[in-house]
């Protein structure tokens, strides 16, 4: 489009209102990123914004160039020095936040301000890469308002004082465009594979890992973050059976339990015989960046996109980089494993490192000697030891020496699930009973409002499985045998104690979690797979990206078309006063008979012309005209009764013949 010359040569500087709004926008961006930036850095950025605001209030001009250059070098420099690298999520976000603040230092013209706003919108979005919970999404969405208000303030037509008019347009538009935004969200085709590198290849994995050494689970057990939510199709399983199988650890190296070499064991899932009713449920698992999926012990089948390992554990084909949902059927009454244990499997289940923990081995040998072939008695011996042997459940477990099992069993006697599961499995193996460690989650919190089980990271748990002839792999939870429990002072509830009580929670927290769950399931968990099923109600079983694109285009055009229609509606033409309405009606009626009032024609001239043009209506018309002129011009406000009479007369007015064309 041709632009008139001189229109953009020297734009006027920003008005104080626009600049203040710009400062608010930038401050909002800094606030949105504050949770993952160093506190001193956030404070420094906030101070720079405040200083710039104060400076421009006093002298409306840019900050000196040397200062800007200094800032431009100092901001990334500080962050690289702090993080050691400019790459990665946290340093990257901190650096762009800083650059935005530097941009504010030189924002003097509408053009700068628009660029700053655009930049701010982008950085606002990046705040959601850190936390896409409902609360933070709403918060960041609201932070668009100052950005929109700034854009509005850059345009003319605002009163100079007051913030509200600037916010008004943006707020109304934001509310009005929500439906369109949601439709766009539903229909924008998702990428099946990322365009470039996985988002956080180097970021810490969360949740349970497949290595268990003394103390490893500690951080997890004090973490109140949500791990997953489970909704059952029927009644939930009883609390004692809420074990969620994650991974099975076979190999012990004297210190840590690991999955061990998979090649030594069969590849096919161990056979499972269901002995009672099965339970079907849906799991919403939050991102872990790992492959492990969790299922109620023991899963019957594997959900879509997952494979079942030999130990009846579920593994996602792709790393779980975002929340996923899957449905599984599990049997809580089951017999797991073959009739006879394969020789190699048996060897793996009895593996113990040589040269470690002689005392524990000696104890197991004594039990074996006393019990003979009765494996059940040995298990009972071990559980009795944990129950009566002065063992304490405490998250603050003392450190263990080289012979960690011996240290734990005979000296410290203090620990939590991983200590008990590890020691128990060791004792079983030492006594000749095939055993292995299972990690997963146990317990959970039953939300009475929405009927689902909430599993937190603190519910992480480790237990043992022992192989008994005729019964297969049997779950034994040695931690449950411990009688003395010291609840952690570190804040996290002792989630892995069976029946650990969480009833003290406030009901509002339940409700909040219901909302969070809904958010996680419907919005955060809306992935490419669920999108393909989106158009099912339109008879399309598997929507392709092209279909979605077409639907998106149709929706956008429809929305804008409807919006255009609404926008083009004239405000009610009907004048507020009845006299003008009646006189408009008379004019329309006369116009139908060929007498059209000119734009600059007064009523008196018009009616005179009309009486000439329509001779047979002339007497009545003359009467109406004089009445109108009296009401309109001879009275300050027309009396209502006479106005009503005039309106009635107009309604009764008829013309028989058409006008003869004026000479």
């Amino acid at each position, binding site marked *: *489009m041709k632009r*008139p010359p001189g*229109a953009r040569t020297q734009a006027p500087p920003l008005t104080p209102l626009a600049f203040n709004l710009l400062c608010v926008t930038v401050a909002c961006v800094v606030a949105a990123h504050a949770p993952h930036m160093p506190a001193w850095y956030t404070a420094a950025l906030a101070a720079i914004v405040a200083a710039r605001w104060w400076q421009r209030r006093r002298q409306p001009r840019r900050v000196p160039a040397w200062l800007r250059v200094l800032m431009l070098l100092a901001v990334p420099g500080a962050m690289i020095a702090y993080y050691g690298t400019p790459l990665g999520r946290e340093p990257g976000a901190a650096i762009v936040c800083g650059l935005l603040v530097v941009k504010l230092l030189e924002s003097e013209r*509408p*053009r700068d301000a*628009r660029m700053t706003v655009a930049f701010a*919108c*982008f950085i606002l*979005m*990046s705040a*959601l*890469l850190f936390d*896409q919970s409902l609360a*933070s*999404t709403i918060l*960041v*969405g609201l932070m*668009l308002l100052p950005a*929109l208000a700034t*854009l*509005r303030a*850059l*345009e*003319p*037509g605002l009163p100079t004082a007051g913030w509200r008019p600037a916010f008004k*347009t*943006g707020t109304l*538009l*934001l509310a*009005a*465009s*929500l439906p*369109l*935004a949601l439709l*766009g*969200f539903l229909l*924008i085709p*998702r*990428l099946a594979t*990322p*365009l*470039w590198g996985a*988002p956080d290849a180097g970021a810490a994995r969360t949740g349970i890992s497949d290595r268990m050494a003394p103390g490893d689970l500690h951080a997890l057990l004090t973490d109140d973050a949500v791990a997953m939510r489970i909704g059952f199709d029927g009644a939930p399983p009883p609390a004692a059976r809420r074990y969620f199988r994650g991974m099975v650890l076979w190999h012990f190296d004297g210190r840590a339990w690991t999955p061990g070499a998979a090649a030594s064991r069969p590849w096919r899932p161990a056979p499972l015989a269901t002995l009672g009713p099965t339970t079907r449920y849906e799991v919403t698992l939050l991102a872990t960046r790992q492959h492990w999926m969790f299922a109620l012990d023991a899963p019957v089948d594997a959900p879509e996109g997952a494979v079942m390992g030999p130990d009846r554990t579920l593994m996602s084909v792709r790393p779980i*980089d*975002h929340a996923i949902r899957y449905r599984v059927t599990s049997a809580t009454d089951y017999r797991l494993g073959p009739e006879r244990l394969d020789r190699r499997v048996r060897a793996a289940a009895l593996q113990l490192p040589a040269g470690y923990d002689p005392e524990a081995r000696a104890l197991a040998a004594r039990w074996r000697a006393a019990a003979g072939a009765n494996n059940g008695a040995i298990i009972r011996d071990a559980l009795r030891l944990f129950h009566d042997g002065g063992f304490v459940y405490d998250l603050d477990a003392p450190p263990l020496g080289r012979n960690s099992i011996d240290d734990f069993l005979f000296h410290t006697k203090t620990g939590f699930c991983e200590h008990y599961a590890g020691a128990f499995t060791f004792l079983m193996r030492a006594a000749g009973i095939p055993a292995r460690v299972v990690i997963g989650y146990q317990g959970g919190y039953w939300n009475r409002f929405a009927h689902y089980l909430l599993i937190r990271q603190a519910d992480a748990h480790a237990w043992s499985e022992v192989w008994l002839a005729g019964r297969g792999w049997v779950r034994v939870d040695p931690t449950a045998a411990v009688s003395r429990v010291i609840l952690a002072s570190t804040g996290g509830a002792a989630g892995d104690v069976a029946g650990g009580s969480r009833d003290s929670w406030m009901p509002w927290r339940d409700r909040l979690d219901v909302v969070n769950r809904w958010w996680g399931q419907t*919005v*955060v*968990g*809306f*992935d490419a797979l669920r999108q393909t099923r989106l158009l099912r109600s339109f008879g399309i079983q598997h929507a392709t990206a092209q279909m979605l694109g077409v639907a998106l285009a149709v929706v956008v055009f429809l929305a*804008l078309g409807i*919006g*255009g229609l*609404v*926008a*083009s509606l*004239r*405000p009610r033409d009907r004048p507020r006063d009845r006299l003008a309405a009646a006189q408009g009606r008379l004019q329309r009626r006369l116009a139908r008979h060929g007498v059209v009032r000119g*734009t*600059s024609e007064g009523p008196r001239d018009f009616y005179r012309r009309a009486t000439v043009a329509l001779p047979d209506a002339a007497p009545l018309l003359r009467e109406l005209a004089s009445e109108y002129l009296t009401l309109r011009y001879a009275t300050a406000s027309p009396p209502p009764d006479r106005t009503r009479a005039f309106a009635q007369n107009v309604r009764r007015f008829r013309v028989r013949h058409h006008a003869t064309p004026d000479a």
Partner: protein
Amino acid sequence: MDARPRGAGRTLAARIRRRLPGLLRGRTPEPLPVRLDRRRVYIAPTRAGCGFAVLLIAMLAGALNYQNNAALLLTCLLGAVLACSMLLTWRELHDLTLRALHAEHGFCGARLPLHLAFADDGRARPGLNIAVDGLLQPCPLRRGTSRATVTAPTRTRGWVALPRMRLSSTLPFGVFRAWSWITPDQQVLVYPRILHDAPPPASSDDPNDRIAGGDEFAALRDYHAGDPIRHVAWKASARHDHLLVREFDRAAPGQPLRFDWNALSDIDRETRISRLTGWVCDAYAAAHPWILILEDRRPFGPANDAAHYHRCLTALAELP
């Protein structure tokens, strides 16, 4: 512009012109009132709008790549807001009706004020800009006001057609610009250019030299609305915080001045007209009666009132 189609093609062409005035971009002069209906309001993204489009694509790519639905939702929200703002921008112009246009009298070379009267439809149009001949002039219409004033350049004297006006708005966010063209089918009279350093009329016995001499004056007084702009004493005004005008000596009201076309023989036609115009203006400013005699020896006056002034200037402007 006047190449009217003839014959069979005429009805079709007329129909096209009526249905799609946009094709002509408002180049055809049309009688007032002109309503900007949906067929003639254009809309396109501004430069900032294109920047925001790039931003949205970048945000979309990031959100999709990181499979972050919250970020995608935010992107959709921003996109939807900006797309919907297009409707508001369009609505700024849509249904705007230019009811009447009144041109002030202006001299060639100065900008001619045009008073526009829009139909009052109870809607505010705070972002309206009107560009006449390339100069963008903000004309905010508040609710209840329907009048705006713009200035148009003048290049020739006499009856000239009004230039095409571009009405535009970038409200509310400056990411879209709606615009439309109006060429009112109206002619305005432009008075001739005033020659400022005109030598006084040739009659030496005239005691009113100083009127036409222009530089001699009796006193300075405060500016009042309606004072001729060229009597403003700019240098003196610069030293004060308000405008001062030169008050001319009105001492000799007796003999009317005589501005004769034929007395100015050795200069070209336009300069002659301009000089006569300058004299008329000066005499009128000094409230001194004058007689204007044109080429065809038609005399005007003597008189010193506004009607006489405008009659003289109209006659000068309409000279071939």
